[in-house]
């Protein structure tokens, strides 16, 4: 039973560039959430996708956008990268978007901005 998989594992970009991160949810899950974890901090919620629509959004600028595909996989896009976007980006999946649904995490994509 495959868990949540994310790609790539590491990425190095320069300021102003654009990046796309990918996530495949755990088998049987249909809801995908993205989190940003800065060094030494707890993860911060970016947004959540269910039925190919953004359901909730955290306090992140419009430079952060996403997409969910019919097979439930998801992408996170970040435009006009800033040094402060350097972080571990975590994808989590669950069955349905309810408050009582445990979210299962992938190992993340480490994004470094030079």
């Amino acid at each position: 039973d495959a868990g949540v998989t994310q790609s790539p594992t590491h990425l190095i970009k320069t300021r102003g560039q654009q990046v796309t991160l990918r996530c495949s949810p755990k088998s049987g899950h249909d809801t995908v959430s993205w989190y940003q974890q800065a060094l030494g901090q707890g993860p911060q919620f970016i947004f959540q996708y269910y039925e190919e629509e953004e359901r909730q959004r955290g306090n992140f600028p419009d430079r952060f956008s996403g997409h969910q595909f019919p097979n439930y996989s998801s992408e996170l896009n970040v435009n006009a990268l800033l040094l402060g976007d350097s972080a571990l980006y975590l994808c989590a999946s669950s069955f349905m978007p309810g408050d009582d649904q445990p979210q299962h995490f992938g190992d993340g994509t480490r994004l470094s901005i030079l």
Partner: protein
Amino acid sequence: AQSVTQLDSQVPVFEEAPVELRCNYSSSVSVYLFWYVQYPNQGLQLLLKYLSGSTLVKGINGFEAEFNKSQTSFHLRKPSVHISDTAEYFCAVNTGKLIFGQGTTLQVKP
């Protein structure tokens, strides 16, 4: 808005000693609480969850947590820790999105 506070940033403890990691949350009508563990260079792994029912929740790796509504706490405990328990631990409340505390680094010393 919901919030989570982890009261200790670092907890050093000797191997085979008991440990408690403290977590307080802001109150709400309904609360769904979780503890996650993060090993170096990895994602978060679910340790245990409180949804309803018994206030004592047992999780993986010998961890347990107690939900205390009057004190708005959800402290994590283990009676005897191992070196392999060294990791970052996060308490979180689920409001449809997970709101995490700042994390507690558990350092188990031989």
